[in-house]
Each structure stands twice: as structure tokens, then as C-alpha cells.
């Protein structure tokens, strides 16, 4: 298992960095999350049952690490406290997809996570449901609701 895990980590590092970055919007924090997730994954590799589960299993470690991290760093701003001037986007490069970034800020942590797992990590709904301990229909309806919300936010401007 160890060899497969390391191969997986090496081949997916950019994807994982991007997922971590989507939560933190900050290079250093995202690198920290990737690093801690790898150490954790290797340390707890015996909790991994089969090879097929590797991708969702690692994503879960990564999003849990990101969640803990955001809480500790107090960067975790609940949805209703977000106001436009608080958005970190202005400090980023202007080439950034500001519209989507801003739209993402209007999502709850759970909505964001489902959207990220679907669109960044390309997980199937069934896998997302299992990973988040939610039932399939809840995940489905959250995803559709969130997609519509994003579309509306993106069309608005």
C-alpha cells in the first residue's frame, strides 16, 4: 500500500495544493495543509481499506486538515459575516477569476466542500456522500442548490 500511496501523493500534489488553496486563499497556509495531510496519510495508511478508496480517503484527510486549520487560524468566517470589503481577492493577482472567488465566498463551508470535491477533485456524488457522512440525496440536493446559487451569482454581474 505504501508505494501506491506515495505514487498517488506525488501524482496528485498539484491538485491537492489547489484544493487547499481554494480554502485558504493563501500560499503558505495551503502548503502547510498539503504537508500535514501527507504526513497524516502516511502515518494512518493502515486505516485505508482498499486501493480504490485512496482518492476519496486522501481528500477527506485534506479537507479535515483544512477545516481544523481554518478554525485555528480564525480565517474561517461564517457565511453571514462576510461583507464585500472583507474579501481577500483585492490582495491577489488581478488575473484571478474574481467573479467565481467572490461567488464562492457566499457559500457555506459545507456547500463549498461539496462543490470543491465535485469540481476540483472530480469525485462522484456517491463518494462525496460517503466521505462526508451524509446521505446521497442530501448531497445531491445540496449540490444542485449550490450550482444554481453559483450560476445566479455569476450571471448577476
Amino acid at each position, binding site marked *: 500500500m505504501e508505494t501506491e500511496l506515495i505514487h498517488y*501523493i506525488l501524482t496528485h500534489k498539484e491538485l491537492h495544493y*489547489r484544493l487547499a488553496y481554494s480554502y485558504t486563499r493563501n500560499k503558505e497556509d495551503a502548503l502547510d495543509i498539503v504537508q500535514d495531510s501527507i*504526513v497524516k496519510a502516511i502515518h494512518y495508511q493502515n486505516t485505508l481499506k482498499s486501493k480504490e478508496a485512496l482518492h476519496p480517503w486522501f481528500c477527506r484527510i485534506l479537507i479535515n486538515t483544512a477545516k*481544523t486549520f481554518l478554525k485555528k487560524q480564525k480565517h474561517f468566517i461564517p457565511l453571514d459575516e462576510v461583507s464585500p470589503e472583507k474579501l481577500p481577492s483585492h490582495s491577489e493577482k488581478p488575473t484571478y477569476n474574481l467573479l*467565481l472567488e467572490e461567488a464562492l465566498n457566499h457559500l457555506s463551508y459545507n456547500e463549498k466542500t461539496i462543490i470543491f470535491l465535485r469540481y*476540483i477533485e472530480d469525485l462522484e456524488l456517491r463518494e462525496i456522500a460517503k466521505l462526508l457522512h451524509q446521505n446521497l440525496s442530501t448531497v445531491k440536493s445540496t449540490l444542485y442548490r449550490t450550482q444554481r446559487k453559483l450560476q445566479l451569482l455569476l450571471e448577476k454581474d
Partner: protein
Amino acid sequence: MNLMSKQKNQADLSETFADYLDQIEIPEELNAIVDSAIQRTKPLKERNMNMKKFAKHTIAASFIGLMGFVGSVNLSPTFASSISDLPLLGSLVKVVNLRQFEYQASTYNATLEAPVIEGLEDEALQKSLNTKYLEENKKLYEAFEKDVAKMEQFDSPGHLGVDSGFEIKTNTEDILSIARYVVNTVGSSSTTMTYDTIDKKNEILITLPSLFIDEEYISIISENIKTQMKERMKQDENLVYWIEGDEGALEGFDRINVHQPFYITAEGKLIISFDKYEVSPGFMGIQEFEIPTEVIEPLLVSSLYIH
């Protein structure tokens, strides 16, 4: 919204995300960070040729600067002063410092030291412990030699370091607890600790299971540690422990091992120890937990060692 436009919009969203992801730049440091995270979780002997890539970013671990001779038993001045601070120096059982091996080259350093126990009447016990200490250092040395040979094949060799030594945790009339550490430095450093606790009067090696009437201690101690971890995290927001069952985490501390590293303090308290990365991220280092005696009292074989 009809089905057609719904599908179209979903495709748009995928495209928007693909765009968004492309615009997140991958920092140069990512490779080095991923490599060192993988590397630090592996024991020295399993390290591979990847070490060169991130070796440049390393800082060698600091070594304790004791003077000594290869292969000769010597009681170092630093150590002698530290032991005289402890009560009962007159006790017949003592520990001396053996500098087994020292190697300092431009980018490689190794300092291997082993404790040597003297004065136990049970010579078989004394010999088995002393042999174990020497054998462990011999293995570390062999692994280090191999790593150096591998590193030599590169044009610009990086840092390699190994440092072993010991610390007297407790030395009372009844108990001697010795902690031994190994610090490996390739990329980042990792530290492993091992402990031996000896009943000096009865001349027996105390193991964790031998302290308790049955194996229930595993769950009692584990639960207490989890409570302490949560308490510590509440007190200080910067601390992070990985606890099983937290926020749906599959991966985290659940139970101590039957032979979890431990030592006993001069006050008769049980301390459970975890290596770096075992229950928390690297910045937290080695973690120790004092188990309140009242928690484990009903399970103790006697109150001789722990009280």
C-alpha cells in the same frame, strides 16, 4: 429551467472551475514540501535517492557538544554535573556515557552516544540492557554509512545527520528512568524516543503492562489522554492534536499501544510519551502526558512505583 439549459449551465460551471484552477499558481516550494513530508515519515534505512532534491533546504540538527573518544567509556563533565544535581548520587547504580561514534564532515555529522548502566547486581539484566543500547547505535551507524555512500554519488551532496543520546528522566532510590533519543536529519528532522525504567531495589525492568492488573489500562489511559488533548487545545488555540472521531476524522489518535513509551517521575507519576508526528503535526514535537494517579489507581498492581 428546462433540462437543456440546466445541462448547459453545468457545463459552464465546469469550465469556470477549470479556469479558476488553472489560475491558481503552483508555488516552487511545493515539490520540496511534498518530498520532505514523505521523507520524514520514513525510517532512515528506507530513505531513497530523492533526498538530494530537498537536501539543499536543510539545516542540520544541533548536536550536543560533549568531548569523547571513539569506543572508550567516559563520564563527560556535563553529564557528571547533571547527575550530581539529583538526589542519591551515592546509590550503587549509576549510568555513564559512552561516546561510541563521532563523524563530522562538511555536510555529514553523526554523534552516537549510548548509556552504560553500572552497579546492578543482576548482571544478566544489566548486560542485556547495555548490549541493547550498543547494538541499536551500531545499527544506526551502519544505516548512516549507507546513506553517506548514496549521497556521495551526487555532485553536490546535501546534509545528513544522525544523533543519538540519552537523558536521565528519573533517578531515585527506587527508580531509574532513562530516555534515549534518535534525531535523524534529512530534509527535516525526526525524533524518536525510547525509555527504560528499572526498579533499582528489586532489579527488574518495568514494562507498561507489568504495572497493571489487566489490559483495561489501555482504554482508561487513552480516554484520559484524549480529554487532556481537548483541554490543551481549548486552552491554547495554536495547539493541534489529531483525535479519532473528531469532526468525522478517520485518522487520529485512538488508543495507546500495549507498550506505549512511558516513564515514571520522581514523584511517582506515570508519563506517556508520543513521538513527533504520532498524534500531532510536526511543529508540536514530542508530546508527553501525565496520567493522574487517581484515574489508574484501581488498575495498578501496587502503589510502589506509581502513587
